[in-house]
């Protein structure tokens, strides 16, 4: 029992919570921006998988972690562009396109993986991984230094992205246009805002962020690629956007909290504590449903989310 309680505030657990939260936060921020422009991209899981593969294979073959990250981002953007063509230009049903993107992304990544690394039965291929970027002085603070200031550079970047995104969305012309498109594309169109262009840009940004999330999984966390590398993180990121009610602060909090839940259950498993960890894994989704109920009256869901826009339709 003491193990169960001790793990709650264990420094290692807290540090790994932030680490685990990073890809969730990256993907959720990207998805939030996409959704603010009115596009629901259910293809996050597939995008993350493809990006994880893209990062892994380039990092391994070109022997450059930075190129790996870059190609992961590139893969994420390519996939989101495909989504953009489907939903913004051809105006396919967004849910259908997103689900198709998942199947396509995961299948494609695994196919390419097998093409590059034929099954040998031996060890799994491994790439290098980034070292932790310990911040001088700050990382020496006991406790806090290990938890907060001994993380990967991408973790710092993800957290700093929160205020930057807030400013971008709320204080720039571009941000106003992007949000407007998700609220009322017809009014925007009539007032001269390029609805399709905005949706493309929003999806590209979402792809970029999902690409970073994928890169984080392969070339930061594990140095591995496998078909289930995303392990539902794309879906959790979608849940976090809803849980966070499309607000950046709450998305940050939600990511950290869900990361913490995951880190906690991992540490319980590692300690051999007999607690059904599946319950903890399912908690994010249960909480998301609870958040939906609580937020029902004050939802900040973009009004035109998920609805294809056709000019001149009433």
């Amino acid at each position: 029992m003491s193990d169960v309680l001790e793990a709650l505030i264990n420094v290692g657990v807290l540090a790994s919570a932030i680490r685990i939260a990073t890809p969730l936060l990256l993907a959720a921020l990207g998805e939030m921006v996409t959704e603010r422009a009115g596009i629901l991209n259910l293809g996050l899981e597939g995008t993350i998988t493809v990006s994880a593969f893209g990062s892994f294979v380039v990092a391994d073959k070109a022997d450059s972690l930075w190129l790996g990250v870059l190609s992961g981002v590139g893969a994420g953007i390519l996939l989101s562009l495909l989504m953009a063509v489907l939903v913004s230009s051809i105006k396919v049903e967004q849910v259908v396109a997103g689900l198709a993107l998942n199947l396509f992304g995961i299948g494609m990544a695994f196919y390419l993986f097998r093409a590059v690394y034929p099954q040998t039965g031996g060890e799994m291929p491994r790439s290098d991984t980034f070292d932790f970027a310990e911040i001088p002085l700050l990382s020496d603070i006991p406790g806090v230094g290990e938890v907060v200031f001994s993380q990967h550079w991408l973790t710092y970047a993800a957290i700093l992205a929160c205020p930057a995104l807030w400013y971008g969305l709320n204080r720039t012309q571009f941000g106003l246009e992007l949000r407007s498109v998700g609220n009322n594309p017809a009014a925007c169109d009539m007032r001269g805002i390029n609805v399709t262009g905005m949706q493309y840009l929003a999806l590209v940004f979402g792809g970029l962020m999902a690409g970073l999330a994928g890169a984080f999984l392969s070339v930061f966390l594990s140095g591995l690629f496998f078909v289930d590398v995303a392990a539902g993180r794309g879906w959790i990121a979608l849940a976090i956007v809803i849980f966070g009610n499309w607000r950046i602060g709450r998305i940050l909090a939600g990511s950290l909290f869900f990361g913490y839940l995951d880190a906690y259950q991992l540490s319980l498993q590692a300690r051999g504590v007999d607690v059904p960890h599946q319950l903890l894994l399912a908690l994010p989704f249960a909480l998301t449903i609870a958040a939906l109920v609580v937020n029902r009256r004050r939802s900040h869901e973009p009004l035109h989310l998920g609805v294809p826009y056709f000019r001149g339709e009433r």
Partner: protein
Amino acid sequence: MNGSSADSVLLRASGVTKRFPGVVANDNITLDVRRARVHCLLGENGAGKSTLADLFYGVHEPDEGVIELRGEPIHMVSPRDAIAAGIGMVRQHFELVTPMSVLENVVIGTRGEAKVDLRAARDRLRELCDLYGVEVDLDTPVGDLAVGQQQWVEILKALYLGCEVLILDEPTAVLTPEGIERLFATLRRMASEGLTIVLITHKLHEVMEISDDVTVLRRGRVVRTSLTSEVTMADLTRMMVGRDVDLAIDVAETPRGDLVLDVSGLDVATESGRGSLKQVSLRVHEREILGIAGVSGNGQDALFDVLVGMRSADSGRIVVDARDVAELSPAGRLDIGIASVPADRIHQGLMMDFRISENLILGRQRSERFGRRGWLNQKGIGEFADDSFAAFEIAAPSPAHVTRVLSGGNLQKIVMARELAGQPRLLVVHQPTRGLDIGATEYVRRRLVEERDRGAAILLISEDLDELLNLSSRIAVMFDGRIVGEVDRRDATIDRIGLWMAGVSDTPGEALA
């Protein structure tokens, strides 16, 4: 109340109060509806008429007070209870299954037997049609009927279910003058056959024409119930608005200036084929308001869309200031001074979850006044919003407030403030006062005339004939996608325009100019 015998009271509201978050929609309402009479509920938008009707029909339950039918209190939790009690209602927005036939639509609401006896149903429906003089083909899919015809289907549904009281919510909004005449004749006949009619309207002349009794509502309360024969239109207006309002604003004639908008031979085919434009030609000059009259669905939507760039024309020319704009995007048209006020301000004009200030600058967020190098200039936006609030008398706590909470009149003022800020050369306005109360209506109309006097060319598409006759310099009438007649305001009469609206074209020299 008016001294008639109490035993003829069929439906009664007694001390009924209904609250919604933030508003008291009905405040201690007491009124009697007498058997076999036509009883009008008159009031402005938001006076509580529709809420009261919903209470009579079981859509809502009153928070306080009771509804009584035949002297007995009745407790209704859903329209099903109302139907069982003999109350029928035709709502503003029809509840029809459009691919199904008239007969099938009428039978839908019936319950009881597992097997629907269509033959018996058809016979009964025929009887009803004959009894009240309703003409509608029972086998036509409802979707193929005109809106006015669809309303008859709704009426038949209520009758078929055996209602004793028929409530109609603004039934004339979708009808031509002839259609209204027919409806009223039928309602009179129904009343003489013993049916009780409750008619909701905000049009005074309808009250005078059709009703036996009239109850005026204002701000959720009953002002007075009277015998219609004992009141005048002026009395009713005073009761409705609480002050004397002459809606007809004083519009002085001004000499028109240069030609601004020149539309010729415009063809626009819509996807469904309904509301297409066929060879539409019209001209609007500086300091001139051209009114477009017509029953809704005769091409007004397509005309608006094609002028603002939301729809492209199949053929024909749209020339603004000697420049062909047919290929320009909405943004391009904005740039050359074409502004527009859409009919559906909520769906086409405003972002309801956004701040009022954000709506005020929509489309000009990249102008120098509101931003630099990608950043928004909060100060510039705030000043503009304050100016707009003052200039347009927008009643809202602050520009930072969410747009959703505002009344229809204030929403329209936001759209107008935004569209007029650029001093447009051409203003395309669609149904600018629909759903607004009298005060806001008057304000919007005055503003349009001011714009005209400033020098703008204005195309005013409206279904409100009074509005058109009051504001327009000339009136053109659309029917089935064509301009079937055009007349100078001085020569315009309701009768003549009404005929054109019904598709009866005459052969005057000035028509189809």
